């Protein structure tokens, strides 16, 4: 503890640990990383993420970074982007990827699941209107396919995949639609429904967060 010069003190660490569910060691590690990225400043800006060179090849880099600057992903009820984030916010976003605890009640798992889904939903809902519209979805698919130089450009495949996916989603949610019924986009409830088959709570986590002292701090 106290390895970082401008890091939070022990009491703050405890508070953060309670808030985010990370262990104190993990928080310290993440704080070190935060300092490294922000060049020892209090806050982190979007440009700071450019330094993570591994991110360059990530097709949905923009959305992921944006998720860190999205007010919806902090505990408050506000929406909209922010310019810079402090360590606590950074930690809050990271905490969405924390794995399950060994013993959790059904309710806890359910709420965790919802939390994780909400995070994903926010990431996909680019325009923050509470709905994943077809446009949002297309955008996502386009980004996902952008690694493939041939598929990504071919807008036909992107749009048709996104549309088929959307349609599939609609079918799952609503069943058959009337010809003139208009579906504006997935709401969060719909989104939860789509994810019913996938146990996200066991998938959406990153191992290193569980390890007390990660060794690969760059």
């Amino acid at each position: 503890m106290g390895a970082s010069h401008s890091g939070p003190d022990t009491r703050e660490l405890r508070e953060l640990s309670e808030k985010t569910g990370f262990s104190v060691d993990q928080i310290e590690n993440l704080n070190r990383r935060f300092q490294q990225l922000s060049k020892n400043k209090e806050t982190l800006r979007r440009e700071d993420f450019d330094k993570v060179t591994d991110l360059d090849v990530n097709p949905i880099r923009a959305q992921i970074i944006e998720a860190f600057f999205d007010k919806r992903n902090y505990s408050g009820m506000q929406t909209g982007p922010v310019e810079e984030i402090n360590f606590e916010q950074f930690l809050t976003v990271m905490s969405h990827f924390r794995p399950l605890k060994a013993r959790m009640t059904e309710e806890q798992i359910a709420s965790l699941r919802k939390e994780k889904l909400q995070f994903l939903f926010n990431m996909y809902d680019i325009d923050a209107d509470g709905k994943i519209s077809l446009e949002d979805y297309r955008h996502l698919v386009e980004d996902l396919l952008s690694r493939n130089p041939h598929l990504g450009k071919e807008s036909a495949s992107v749009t048709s995949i996104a549309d088929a996916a959307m349609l599939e989603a609609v079918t799952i949610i609503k069943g058959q639609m009337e010809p003139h019924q208009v579906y504006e986009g997935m709401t969060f409830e719909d989104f939860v429904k789509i994810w019913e088959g996938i146990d996200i709570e066991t998938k959406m986590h990153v191992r290193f967060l569980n390890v007390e002292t990660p060794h690969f701090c760059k």
Partner: protein
Amino acid sequence: SKRWCSEKMTRKKNDRPNEAPLKWEWQYVQGPYLIVVWIMVASLAKILFHLSYKVTKIVPESCLLIMLGLGLGGIVLAATNKPEYQLDPNLFFLFLLPPIVLDSGYFMPSRLFFDNFGAIMMFAVIGTVWNSFTTGFALWGIKMSGLMSDKVDAGLMDFLLFGSLISAVDPVAVLAVFEEVHVNETLFIIVFGESLLNDAVTVVLYKVFNSFVEMGTINVHPVDYFKGIASFFVVSVGGTIVGLFFAFALALISRFTKRVRIIEPLFVFLLVYLAYLTAEMLSLSSILAVTFCGLCCKKYVEANISQKSRTTVKYTMKTLASIAETIIFMFLGISAVDTSKWIWDTALVLFTLLFILVFRAIGVILQAWVLNQFRIYPLDKIDQVVMSYGGLRGAVAFALVILLNGAKVKAKDYFVATTITVVFFTVIFQGLTIKPLVKWLKVKRADQHKPTINEEIHERAFDHILAAVEDIAGQSGYHHWRDKWEHFDKRYLSQLLMRKSAYRIKDDIWDVYHKLNVRDAISYVDQGGHVLSSAKMSLASMPSRTSFSENSVTNLIRENGSGVCLDLQVIDTVRSIRDREDTVMHHVLTGNLYKPRKRFHSNYSRHFISANEQERQECEVFQRNMRRRLESFKSTKHNVYPTKSKARHKRDKSQKKKNNDANDTIPNGKPRRNISWQNPAPIAVEIESEDEENDNSETEKDEGITFVARAADEVFQERTPSSNLDVCQSPCVIPPSPTCAEKELPWKGRQGDLPACVSSETTKIVPLDMQQAWNQSISSLESLASPPITEIQLQPTLAELDEFPSPGPTPLHLARFQFPDSTLTTQHNSDDESPDSIQQQELQPLVSYERPSWLGQSASSAGTRWPVQFNRASRVSLLKNLVSGSTSNLGGQSSSSQTDL
């Protein structure tokens, strides 16, 4: 088999030349004959087992097969008084095991496998070592304590040798049982992966101890132990490298098999088998070699080979594996009858059973505890129970124990007896009880659902998100490296190993999308118009239709157009019926329209002679529709005359062009078909009408139709009949003929007949100044299903109308309206100035006239049409893939040659 062969040879020598006309050549065929008969028996037995659902639900197939083997062995024993057949180790290792391992390696879910690689390796290596040593030492302890009979002449090395062969979890047995249990993926992959990967350990331990035993314990130097450890790495890493090498070679070869599709599947089997044999030759782990070969080559091979080859590979592999498995279990049963080979010792058997169960359980618990320190998703108690209990022993152990050298390993017969008992116990008892156990423990089962595009998208996004989070947190975890690997694979490996065409479209999401599309198309055709997996692509109900800009739609059509478009449209026209989501229509269609899908060729080469009753009925359908159309037509007729000559001129041109090259696209890059619609050239009418006519006739014959078939039809017609049609193209040339017998005129034979009729007859019905409009209306209606008949001519046949099964044909026509309608809309948007499009607009009321209100609504507003259009676009891409991806007799084959991906 060797024995059979040698017997055959000896008997052959003794044969005397025989002059009898009917020779009894049993000796000649004996070997293969017996093999085939055995396989037959085994396969028939499988059928028998599965006759009763109740039995197979409770009893795993492997148990049944072993019991069957026991029974057959008993019969053979009773009949010949000597045990005839044995599970021959050589036969087993060289022929029976490879297909099973290949099957499991090739179809192993690679993602899952590598996600759990750590756990698998731990269980495979440490678990197996643990099991064999503990079992060996414990048995030796029992021997020392004197509980075992003195006749069991074995030292520590013998017991360790025995422990090594008895401790390995057997892939065949595990697969046979677990396949039916459906535990969750993670559990399955760990147990199964362990059973495959422990081969290296087993082989090494077995060989090392075997050599120790044969050398004699005194001669073993400490250095030999290190050699043993070193040989483990050599065997396992070497086996893996051999596998990877052949996987690479296979992928590379499959890249260049485009011209020789027929032997593509062969390469898969050849190279994998070569990998197996090479590994055996170098005394490396052959199972590892095949597993990794199958695991690693799959992605590239699947991308390279054609759809048909893929299916062939899949089925051949499954068949071979299934046969091998069946024979293994049956021969296990038969071998057990051979009492001369084994000597029973109760203590040895019981303690072995006890030890393998107990030590397996202890090992699993210990390892799971260690693993859970690292695993994010821990293995819970229930998983551990199933894993311990699922440690089945099988034929590998049996084959290994048979291979022991009886002269050196004194207690071989005891070991054989024990092994057989252990195998039987684990396969039969544990196999029988594992299902209830899994149920009782409420083990999380595998959720078996079809992949959805959403899932694929989300999981892909997920991988990237997780990798990104690891990156941001500055830690190179699993996701980070996986992401790195995928990037490398995509950049270099795939580019090297995949065909350019395959590489271009290689993408997981795309794959799922494509798969779903194909599945939908297939099920659609199979169901004769019903699409079961609901609206996967029926974008008619696509909600946000406002977002489809006109531009993008036309672009889509342009991009995807040309040759294949023909196929597409055929599907699409039919599909759009479904898109209406009118259940009534579905019923009508399935009831009356499309049933089975073969028989196309009879239609294809159908001669006009066959036009008889059915065509008459078609006449009636046509008549009814015609009359209605005529009525509505009267209201719109005025506006069409001025463009007539121009249109005809165009039409002639386009016809010539068609004669030159059926698949040519017109300069603006749009599919030919669109142009045909735009210029309401009769040729287009003909195509459609012929098409439709075929439809109808098939309807009547109840022969069914597929989009495939129809597509071919269309292509064909575009090419050939036009010359025929020229004859009767001009409306004025041919005098009105009084009957519809015209269609039987010889010059109209083959495909061109009816359509020709159409255009000539039209002139009769419609006043000259209306002809253009008339043609248009026909083309837009796309429903010239049958030889046209004037109203006057109608009269005599009207009576027959009643005979006609009522609901069928009319809806068919309704359905037909949709396509041209939608195309028109496209046309209209792409070039507004065209007088034709104006006409078409004028004709809209006519088009929608016959629709039920729900159809009319959607037809009347352009906005609502877009989804259909869009759907089509996606169809195009689907079909492109379909066409390029298979050598099937897709109709678009000829037409798609230009657009081959």
